[in-house]
């Protein structure tokens, strides 16, 4: 089999997941897109491991580790999303802005403070 087939499929799958991460609003859908990106990485690992005939099976063992890490990530991520939903009442990631800087800062002291802080020297 030509190596291009799995490699191109993995690249396209990664880009699809990237679109999902950037364009989705619900946090759980973002987690699903992250799963797609991890699956693309797994396909790459397996394909290159089979291509190289690695004696230590590095790619496949790392794929197994990646699957376990994805399970841990999805558990923690869902716990955090559920906690946020319980306390805030929403899981839309563009409404959870309590920790972010405001895009239009107030014209008094925060702007002055920021200009003094971020002035390059």
């Amino acid at each position, binding site marked *: 089999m030509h190596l*291009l087939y*799995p490699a191109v499929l993995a*690249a396209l*799958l990664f880009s699809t997941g990237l679109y999902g991460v950037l364009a989705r609003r619900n946090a759980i859908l973002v987690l*699903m897109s992250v799963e797609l990106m991890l699956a693309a990485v797994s396909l790459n690992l397996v394909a290159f491991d089979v291509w190289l005939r690695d004696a230590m099976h590095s790619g496949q063992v790392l*794929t*197994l580790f990646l699957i376990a890490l994805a*399970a841990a990530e999805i558990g923690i991520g869902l716990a955090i999303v559920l906690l946020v939903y319980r306390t805030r009442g929403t899981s839309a990631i563009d409404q959870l802005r309590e920790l972010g800087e405001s895009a239009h800062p107030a014209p008094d002291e925060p702007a002055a403070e920021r200009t003094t802080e971020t002035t390059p020297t």
Partner: protein
Amino acid sequence: MTGQEVVFVIVGVVVLGAAVRCVTTRELVHAALWLVVALGGLAVQYLLLTAEFVAWVQVLIYLGSVVVLLLFGLMLTRAPIGPSPDADSGNRPVALAVSLASAAALVALVVDAFRTSWIELDRPHGESGPVGESLFQNWVLPFEALSVLLLAALVGAIVVSRTRGNEQRTEQRTEQRDGQRNGGVG
């Protein structure tokens, strides 16, 4: 094109279509079901690449538990039946541009780099026996570290999901039990 390549292309088109539907559909539960199709097709790709152990682990872990967890998450936050128009945020054009640019760059790079590489699939590479031996001979220490990490993640998930948010959730059913527990602790 050999038969394996034909099957790989067909299943790859299915995987890619399911992935695109997963990130573009407006029905949240359908997105999880399309994710099942995409990950199941990816298990078929692993089988075609003769990595059978990884394929069955993929089926067990991803299709068996991760998608069920995601469906539980969707049901516990909100479970709208039918399309929800606010599934996509406002930066769809930017996301589309970024993903198309990354797809073009990655595909061009991969095609340029591996134009003359062929995978030899006559001898299987990735049966359960050799992978298991390699896992428990060369990769024991990362394996144990990963098991500790999984335990920590599990404990962390439990701690995060059962904190003082109980006062909204505890109705008459668990009130008495919580009273006993708080009395015992405090």
